[in-house]
């Protein structure tokens, strides 16, 4: 006979041991008189070890523990967008209403508003054969996003009744002939990936509007990227830029163990920011999860799973979803903290031995898939990593780099020179260019990959030349190499640097990126010609049109102006020969 009530035997921080309860692994239990939420993470004979998502101060041995029979799940349905949740999908707004400005404990809150009525429009009819994942109706959730109501993954049958109209998320909108009632809300256990038919190879870039990313190190829709960097190198700013400007249809932003003020900033800013792709407020496509560094550590561990399950749910509706996790290191530290309370044998640097497999499982939930209903959807995962001291030889960075195909390495040195985004162009990489080249050729320019190769080659040559300059000074180099340095400098200052806070410069379309890269190469060609005809490097570099070309990128409508400015630059460089 199973027993659904036990007693607390021991409390050590967020880890509680209970006896006399029959619980399954990862089952949700309620701890103590206050019924704090917890999850079973280990079973030792009679004892169940529970990680508790709330502060355990004041709880005593002997208090009761109740099992719920459920595993940690999220509520999925209309009402997710524009929300901000804690790590276990409690809306922070609801928590504020109940608890005030400080987060106390023992409060349950539904992830979705169960009362709110939504207009459900059925798209299926009575008698249709439906199976898991099939869309049976829609709800206009925000201006830009149509929420598709799907048959839960495990249900199937013939529709017996279906109705359009005003419903809340728990009312039945459709019944199947086997008696299954379908509501707009589904629940799904967070630690299980949602099912799909098959994974495809990614072939479309996630356009981010950041030149260094799109142009040199592109990420594919359905891909996974890691951004490691020491503090102050701009991880969060980069993640936030991605959340603002990437051309995903849905954005899930997880603030995992980070600063409270940063989440507030996002909350303040996003409702006023306009999505460059739809012209509507960014908030309309965003779900946020905020479990800041001082909120309970077990809920931090859960937050990334909560986030990715929500992302998968929108993927299943056929959307391209981008998920930003800032920072996965804090998630790993939460695992470490709980593991050490369990007195598990530690692996590297005190992290549990299963760290790398957990990381792999998480990133593997990214992908471009054929959904259960045959549609095409994707989840792109971008994980920030905060390596101690910026040294990426540590386990979380290494575990991440083994899985992700894109590495955007942030560099404290660049950040100190106020070169933003401070992504190091020499050690970053992307393994996607091969699969994305066709897209770039078809949609931007037929020689796009070649231009990219040329630009990155110039940067590599610069790095080599800089070593010589360090020894002998730049004046000692031959003129053609001095020109290369100037061109590379132009790439760095004009192309790679981008001001995330400037309303115009913050977002560069891929076409504009290409035009800018072309302009740089044109400058190089013309300067070479002019110098061969006797022009002086200094004059060529300082032609007013080139400086204007570079400065004008902060003005509206820059893309249209580039061509004219380049022509002017070419003619001025030509004149510098005659001036001799």
């Amino acid at each position, binding site marked *: 006979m199973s027993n659904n009530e036990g007693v607390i035997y021991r409390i050590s921080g967020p880890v509680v041991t209970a006896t006399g309860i029959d619980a399954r692994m990862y089952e949700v239990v309620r701890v103590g008189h206050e019924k704090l939420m917890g999850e079973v993470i280990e079973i030792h004979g009679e004892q169940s070890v529970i990680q508790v998502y709330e502060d355990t101060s004041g*709880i005593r*041995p002997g208090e009761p523990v109740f099992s719920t029979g459920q595993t940690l799940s999220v509520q999925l349905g209309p009402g997710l967008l524009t929300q901000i949740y804690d790590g276990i999908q409690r809306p922070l707004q609801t928590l504020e209403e109940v608890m005030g400005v400080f987060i106390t404990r023992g409060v349950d809150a539904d992830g979705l508003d169960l009362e709110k009525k939504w207009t459900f429009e059925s798209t299926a009819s009575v008698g249709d054969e439906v199976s898991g994942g099939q869309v049976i109706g829609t709800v206009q959730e925000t201006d830009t996003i149509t929420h598709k109501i799907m048959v839960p993954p495990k249900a199937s049958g013939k529709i017996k009744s279906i109705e359009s109209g005003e419903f809340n998320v728990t009312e039945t909108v459709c019944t199947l002939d086997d008696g299954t009632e379908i509501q707009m809300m589904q629940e799904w256990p967070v630690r299980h990936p949602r099912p799909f038919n098959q994974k495809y190879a990614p072939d479309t870039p996630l356009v981010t509007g950041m030149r260094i990313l799109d142009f040199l190190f592109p990420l594919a829709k359905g891909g996974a990227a890691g951004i490691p960097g020491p503090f102050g190198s701009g991880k969060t700013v980069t993640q936030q830029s991605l959340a603002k400007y990437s051309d995903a249809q849905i954005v899930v932003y997880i603030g995992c163990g980070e600063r409270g003020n940063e989440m507030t900033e996002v909350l303040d800013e996003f409702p006023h920011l306009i999505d460059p792709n739809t012209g509507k407020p960014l908030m309309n496509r965003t779900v946020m999860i905020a479990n800041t560094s001082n909120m309970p550590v077990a809920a931090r561990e859960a937050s990334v799973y909560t986030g990715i399950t929500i992302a998968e749910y929108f993927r299943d509706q056929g959307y391209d979803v981008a998920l930003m996790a800032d920072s996965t290191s804090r998630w790993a530290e939460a695992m*470490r*903290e709980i593991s050490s309370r369990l007195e598990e044998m530690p692996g590297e640097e005190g992290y549990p031995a299963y760290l790398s497999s957990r990381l792999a499982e998480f990133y593997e939930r990214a992908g471009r898939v054929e959904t259960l209903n045959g549609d095409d959807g994707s989840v792109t995962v971008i994980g920030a990593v905060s390596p101690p001291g*910026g040294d990426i030889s540590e386990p979380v960075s290494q575990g991440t780099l083994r899985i992700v195909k894109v590495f955007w390495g942030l560099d404290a040195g660049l950040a100190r*020179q*106020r070169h933003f985004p401070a992504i190091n162009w020499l050690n970053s990489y992307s393994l996607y260019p091969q699969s994305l080249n066709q897209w770039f050729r078809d949609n931007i320019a037929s020689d796009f990959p070649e231009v990219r190769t040329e630009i990155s080659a110039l940067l590599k040559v610069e790095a080599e030349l800089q070593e010589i300059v360090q020894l002998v000074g730049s004046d*000692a180099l031959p003129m053609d190499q001095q020109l290369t340095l100037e061109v590379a400098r132009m790439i760095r*200052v004009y192309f790679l640097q981008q001001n995330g806070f400037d309303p115009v410069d913050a977002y560069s379309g891929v076409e504009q990126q290409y035009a800018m890269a072309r302009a740089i190469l044109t400058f190089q060609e013309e300067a070479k010609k002019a110098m061969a005809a006797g022009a002086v490097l200094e004059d060529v570099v300082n032609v007013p049109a080139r400086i204007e070309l570079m400065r004008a990128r902060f003005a509206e409508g820059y893309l249209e102006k580039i061509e004219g400015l380049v022509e002017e630059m070419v003619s001025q460089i030509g004149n510098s020969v005659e001036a001799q």
Partner: protein
Amino acid sequence: MTSKEYKTITDIKGPLVFLEKTEPVAYGEIVTIRLSDGSTKNGQVLDTSDDMVVVQVFEGTEGIDRRAGVKFLGDVFKLPVSKGLVGRILDGAGRPRDGGPDIVADEKADIIGAAINPYSRQSPHDFIQTGVSAIDCCTTLVRGQKLPIFSASGLPHNDIALQIARQAKLKDSDEEFIVVFCAMGITAEEYNFFRADLERTGALENAALFVNLADDPAVERLITPRLALTAAEYLAFEHDYHVLVIYTDMTNYCDSLRQIGAAREEVPGRRGYPGYMYTDLAMLYERAGIVKGKKGSITQFPILTMPGDDITHPIPDLSGYITEGQIVISRELHQAGIYPPINVLPSLSRLMGGCIGEETTRDDHKKISDQMYAAYAQGRELRGLVAIVGEDALNERDLQYLKFSDIFEDKFVRQGRDEDRTIDGTLNLCWELLANIDTKYLERLDDELISKYHPTEKKE
């Protein structure tokens, strides 16, 4: 139940006492231990189960034997708070140290402090003028921010902290801060220095001091900052004060944390510090901020000394990941005789972007500070090159940058210990100094700003 005294101590190890056969004891509960000589010590429950309770003793376990009596007080650690805290000096455990009476409590506040709901926070955006150019221009301090000073032994971080405490004010306002000062393991000499300075400037009347000195129990240091922050929260959120919390030295705090971790035989993380140090530090630093609907604010100014001047050491490293920037003190500048020796290059204020500009400071602030940075960074880099190849190998642009880096340190960073520069003064100084570089090399500035502010290119 709470009045019962147990004499069932089995083990005593470092700061920890283990006892058995108790009635159920709450996690985090406060404990008093009566020694055989009649004196008492305080502690807190770290681990509790049916069989065994582990108590961390704040004053150290010296003198405790297995016959000592242990009482559980049935409650978690609370600080009596009232407005009367202002003007008082308390010890590291919250008892009066100034010979004054006990604090008459308006209420008792849990010292652990609940997390502020991110949804209920208000973004800090009020510019604080510290009167120090390197900070105001390049790493702007914002009300509600947590901005630590990363220093090292032998550097004048205390002078800088005090100068900021003295001069900090909102632009065009005389509104002052209440200072909550929290000393953790500093020497009596350092403490006297702080105290004397606060007394000299009259700030002591508007301050609350929590003092744990180097010869006070190390474990007590773990609660001292929590007391200080609890007092700060009470003053800020119940009485609308703007509170500036200065705590020094975080390195001593972290070492105490390590000591407890070792005594509990926990699996150590980097350099022996516990794996949960990030979370633990966050529980302190995150108590800075402003919340919706309350007038007060908490601005934090933690001071930490980097062991071996190493910014990658776990203490500055984890702090840097939590705080909203850092002010880095440089030994090199100090040795060159520059005060305040702030190295602006690794220094940063994350909240600066939202609080500078036309409406708050001046329209040129963002770009001019970027330009100052960029030019200084280049100049510094060139110094290394010049050491090898000499100035002759530099081109005109590089020479100008090189020269600028010296001017930057001498005229911009350097200022008097009592020199209080306005933000306008600081920004004008930037332009004056940048005039040493040809405008065509000033890539971060646009023509509009140049014609508005540049001393020689200005168009009236």
